[in-house]
């Protein structure tokens, strides 16, 4: 022990570690979860002009009235457009069902399930493609991809529950500028994406997955009426039933064939009506049938397997008729290609961020000129996007220079850097096209010329599109490496600090207490705590262990409880007959400990049984399901009882302090008031959902928020100032044995006992406030688990206060952390984003606010870890650390270090290990099938846990330092004035 860290140094190192970790984490998140590089604004008429370096945007053209704009676009593009569009989205339909796979037509049963679509395909009226969807294959990002042609990042899904309108350039926005009237029937995701855009809509919710019939009938019931009307230009139908069938029974569900038949009937109805309208001269209508994603054998989706990404794009009513079935059913395009194709077919500018490429077969019926024009438009749009992404793609080699100098040259080989290659490919295509245009007058061209131009265009388009979409999913290696390195560094720093502190404290301890505790060779609990870390790190590599993480935490914590029980057994006296007073005291102590461990075990087991969490076994019975079946009255009763028990338990624990002073009474009373307010709120408003969202309920909740906030902050701020300071008062708490080991001069100089009392009350206030808040915000079913968590905390407090020196402090703090994590899962959370309680995030809010509801959501989700971190304040006050004090260098820094070092460092250290390990795991799993559905959501949880640990630790440290400084100041003032206030 050559050098001992001073308190300041320790603090600085810790803060440095935390900051490095934050930087590393944000770099990694930024690198791993690509933020979509989006261009703002909408494509206007300039998209029909070649990109120039000094392009002058004519703003006046943008504000043209719709019909003039339409005329302008038509004139600029020169491509005849369709008049109306029916976009039919069949959620979760794999293209394989319609088009077959690997040169094979779909199975006979599937063919028979969709006779009309198959006949359309067979006679060439329809043309179908495998449209490969980008992961994550869930509905909202896929819809965005279909309408905007851009690939979103993973964070899109993460914020899926907070659905926001699609603000980027997209087809529907373009159609709106055109003056189109739009109707939407089906999944209400569309309404969330495009609020207020539709003249008529009937949204159905995808929430009731069990419903496979009603959800589609609600769409089809308007269909006959809508098809007979002619006041719409775009009709969107989004059928969810097939996805629900998949979720229930998988691909081969018996419900699948009837559902496909139903979809086929719908297609038949729409197509017949389209043909009829066309004959009546109501304009040409295009029917596009797409699916947003496929499904696995089990009917799940979200990942990136072939089955999930294999979605459908089927165009019905294009003017061309291809009769060769085999030639097209193998065509694989990308889902984003739908957007530019539709844009060009309807004569609107291609959305700005589109990375898709015109689907080649769809323009067969147009003249060669028109086809080339379409390709040219697509190339211009992609080139603009490229220019935004690649500043190096300078204007010198781009088309604003004339290509007169190499007008005649043939296509040159293109290679080199991305910029050069793209430029070269583009130039090739443009040169060929220009020469075609010049020859165009004479009409002396050949098919070879034409196809070589098309090939050149496609070469450019494919290269650019691939590069652009890879860039979205591409991971910048430098950022990732730097982020991981920073996290490793901070992890090392924190672990070194813990190790150092351990050495410093326990070397001395073993010198000091060698005679008492004997050998300290290896301790089972310590080894187990370390082993748990190893187990957790290893289990993170397995996707099913990540899905079922709650089992690990519950198993580990109950094993830890049993190990503690064993440890307690060790000191049970062997001979009961010799019961002198000291031995009696000992058995009483051990009796308390045994009781607290049994309480821990029993409550832990109940918590485990409360929610059957995870992914694979959610259907198994658990207590919450059983209670919900029993009826809401029982739940309310349980909620009230747990509220009452919670309040009485807390008040009892406050009375244990033995300070029957006005101060404690006031604190207790103020919390009692808020507790009673809360119970009253439960009685009044928990009845049903309608009342609980009413105005008075909101006001009531806000009052509770205010009372709780004032009581807690008031306690924290005022208590150290008001705590009575006695010069010579023997410690009256329940751990009276501790006061002996602190030298009397330190007790005189520093307010240790007062600090303990003050911390006890403050920690009590934190915990009580947090529990009441959870009782208010959590689902009613979770009230009893909150109570059990509180009981667990008190049991641990009793255990550790009686268990003087036998356990190292870090073991107990790590145990607290583990219990907090087990409680996190016991409250029904899991590692999927689906279990986040969104409904609770709007309790007590009179107007919508993303920030506030986000904070409430965080409070609800991280109820248990934060509760256990806050209990650290009380833990510091009940844990006897005074034996660590070295009398000769006892200054305030030393005392603070002794009390704070472990409670702050251990959670940070444990979390940093888990965070770093999981970051590495995520990096290794980046190509895993479940990276988007399992590993990435888990990573978001890990990040949020990190934030939660920061919050908890900083509030513990802040409370501690504040209380200590205030009390020390008062003590000094009192010492100097020499007046005892009592």
């Amino acid at each position, binding site marked *: 022990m050559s050098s001992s860290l001073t308190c300041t140094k320790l603090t600085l190192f810790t803060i440095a570690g935390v900051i490095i970790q934050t930087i590393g984490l944000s770099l990694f998140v930024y690198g791993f979860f690509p933020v979509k590089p989006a261009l703002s604004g909408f494509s206007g008429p300039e998209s029909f002009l070649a990109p120039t370096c000094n392009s002058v945007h004519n703003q006046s053209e943008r504000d043209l009235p719709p019909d003039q704009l339409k005329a302008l676009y038509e004139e600029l593009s020169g491509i005849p457009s369709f008049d109306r569009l029916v976009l039919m989205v069949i959620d979760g339909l794999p293209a394989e069902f319609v088009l077959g796979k690997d040169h094979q037509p779909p199975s006979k049963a599937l063919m028979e399930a969709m006779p009309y679509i198959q006949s359309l395909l067979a006679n060439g009226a329809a043309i179908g493609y495998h449209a490969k969807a980008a992961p994550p294959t869930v509905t909202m990002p896929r819809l965005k991809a279909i309408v905007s042609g851009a690939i979103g990042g993973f964070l899109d899904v993460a914020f899926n529950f907070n659905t926001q309108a699609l603000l980027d350039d997209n087809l529907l926005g373009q159609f709106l500028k055109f003056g189109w009237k739009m109707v939407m029937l089906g999944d209400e995701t569309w309404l969330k994406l495009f609020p207020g855009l539709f003249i008529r809509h009937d949204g159905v919710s995808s929430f009731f997955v069990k419903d496979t019939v009603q959800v589609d009938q609600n769409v089809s019931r308007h269909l006959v009426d809508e098809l007979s009307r002619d006041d719409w230009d775009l009709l969107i139908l989004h059928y969810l039933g097939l996805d629900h069938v998949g979720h229930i029974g998988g691909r081969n569900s018996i419900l699948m064939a009837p559902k496909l038949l139903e979809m086929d009937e719908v297609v038949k109805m729409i197509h017949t009506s389209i043909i009829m309208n066309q004959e009546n001269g109501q304009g040409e209508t295009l029917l596009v049938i797409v699916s947003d994603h496929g499904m696995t054998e089990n009917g799940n989706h979200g990942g990136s397997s072939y089955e999930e990404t294999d979605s459908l794009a089927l165009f019905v009513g294009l003017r061309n008729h291809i009769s060769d079935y085999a030639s097209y059913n193998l065509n694989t395009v990308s889902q984003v290609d739908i957007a530019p194709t539709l844009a060009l077919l309807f004569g609107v500018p291609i959305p700005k961020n589109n990375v898709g490429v015109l689907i080649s077969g769809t323009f067969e019926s147009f003249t060669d000129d028109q086809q080339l024009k379409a390709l040219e438009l697509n190339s211009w749009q992609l080139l603009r996007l490229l220019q935004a992404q690649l500043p190096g793609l300078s204007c010198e080699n781009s088309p604003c220079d004339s290509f007169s100098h190499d007008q005649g040259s043939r296509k040159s080989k293109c290679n080199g850097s991305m910029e050069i290659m793209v430029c070269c490919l583009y130039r090739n295509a443009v040169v060929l096209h220009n020469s075609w245009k010049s020859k165009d007058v004479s009409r002396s061209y050949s098919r070879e010329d034409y196809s070589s131009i098309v090939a050149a265009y496609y070469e450019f388009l494919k290269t650019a599109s691939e590069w652009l979409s890879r860039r979205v999913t591409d991971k910048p290696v430098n950022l990732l490496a730097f982020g991981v390195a920073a996290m490793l560094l901070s992890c090392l720093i924190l672990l070194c600090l813990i190790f150092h502190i351990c050495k410093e404290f326990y070397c001395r301890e073993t010198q000091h207490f060698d005679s008492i505790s004997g050998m300290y060779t290896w301790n089972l609990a310590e080894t187990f705590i370390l082993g748990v870390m190893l187990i957790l790190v290893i289990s993170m590599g*397995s996707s099913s*262990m990540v899905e*079922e993480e709650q*089992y690990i935490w519950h*198993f580990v914590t109950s094993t830890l409880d049993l190990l503690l029980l064993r440890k307690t057994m*060790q000191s049970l006296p062997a001979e009961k007959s010799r019961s002198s007073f000291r031995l009696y005291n000992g058995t009483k102590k051990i009796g308390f400990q045994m009781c607290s461990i049994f309480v821990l*075990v*029993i409550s832990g087991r109940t918590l485990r049984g409360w929610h059957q969490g995870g992914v694979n076994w959610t259907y*198994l019975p658990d207590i919450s399901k059983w209670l919900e079946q029993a009826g809401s009255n029982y739940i309310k009763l349980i909620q009230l009882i747990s509220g009452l028990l919670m309040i009485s338990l807390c008040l009892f624990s406050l009375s244990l302090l033995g300070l029957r002073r006005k101060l404690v009474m006031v604190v207790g009373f103020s919390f009692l008031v808020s507790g009673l307010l809360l119970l009253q709120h439960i009685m009044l408003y928990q009845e049903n959902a309608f009342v609980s969202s009413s105005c008075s309920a909101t006001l009531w909740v806000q009052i509770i928020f205010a009372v709780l906030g004032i009581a807690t902050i008031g306690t924290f701020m005022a208590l150290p100032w008001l705590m009575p300071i006695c010069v010579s008062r023997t410690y009256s708490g329940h751990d009276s044995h501790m006061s002996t080991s602190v030298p009397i001069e330190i007790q005189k100089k520093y307010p240790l006992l007062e600090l303990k009392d003050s911390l006890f009350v403050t920690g009590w206030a934190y915990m009580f406030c947090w529990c009441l808040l959870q009782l208010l915000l959590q689902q009613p079913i979770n009230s009893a688990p909150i109570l059990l968590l509180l009981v667990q905390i008190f049991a641990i407090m009793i255990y550790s206060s009686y268990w003087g020196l036998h356990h190292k402090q870090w073991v107990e703090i790590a145990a607290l952390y583990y219990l907090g994590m087990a409680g996190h899962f016991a409250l029904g959370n899991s590692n999927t984003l689906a279990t986040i309680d969104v409904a609770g995030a709007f309790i007590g809010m009179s107007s919508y606010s993303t920030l506030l509801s986000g904070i409430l959501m965080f409070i609800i989700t991280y109820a248990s870890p934060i509760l256990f971190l806050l209990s650290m304040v009380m833990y510091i006050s009940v844990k006897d650390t005074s034996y660590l004090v070295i009398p000769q260098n006892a200054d305030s820094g030393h005392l603070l270090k002794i009390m704070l070092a472990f409670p702050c460092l251990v959670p940070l250290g444990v979390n940093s290990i888990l965070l770093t390990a999981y970051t590495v795991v995520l990096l290794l799993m980046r190509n895993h099938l479940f990276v988007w559905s399992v590993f990435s959501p888990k990573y978001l949880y890990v990040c949020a846990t990190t934030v939660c640990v920061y919050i908890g630790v900083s509030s513990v440290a802040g409370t501690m330092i504040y209380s200590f400084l205030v009390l020390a100041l008062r003590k000094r003032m009192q010492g100097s004035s020499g007046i005892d206030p009592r």
Partner: protein
Amino acid sequence: MKTNATTSSVKASAEPEAEVSASSHSISASEALFVHLISGLGLGLAVLLAHYVFSVNLVSHPSLTLRLIWVIECPIVILLYSRYRKNREDCSYLKAVGRGLLGLPVGALVSALGAIALGTPVGTQYFSKTISWSLMMSLFTIVPAASVFGVSWKDWQRIFAHTKPVGSVDLIICLPAHGAVIGAWFGAWPMPLDWERPWQEWPICVSYGAIAGYLIAMVASSCFILARATLQHVKRD
């Protein structure tokens, strides 16, 4: 049937009793090995019997198989370990057997409670499985100690709380018991994995783990005892 077996074995094992009593709490290496061998063979016999005679196994009929195991293992363990009882002056062989029989349900209760604390599903359909499993665990852990030590808390504490076996009798009790518990603990780990194998059900893989741990620990204990014997032999020379 069980009592029959007990009484007949009592007669059979009455003879070697006299030799053993000479060394109060330590037995010869060969005898310890014999104990382990017989318990291991009993276990093997039970599994083979289940497989060939009743044509069931742990996966298909966990409850039945476990019952078969503990029924066969019960007389073997109790009769074997009762021979090494402590305080043989004021404790007859029969008393030790009785203690062992009494220890069986008590130990089963303790194992069942421990397993439930660690997360065993509670429910009527698991009831018989849990009972059979905990009776088996009781035979691996508690019953030998009950036969040998009776109610001597000091010995129990030494074996189970401190894990400090002294002498070969302690070893043959302590190591297999710990092996079975640790094996069962590790056996529970594959349960949450989504491999959809039938053996991931409670209590199949836990039983496999317990049996494996028990067997490994018996081998380890034999090695320890042999090593000690050779060491003592060398010392004596």
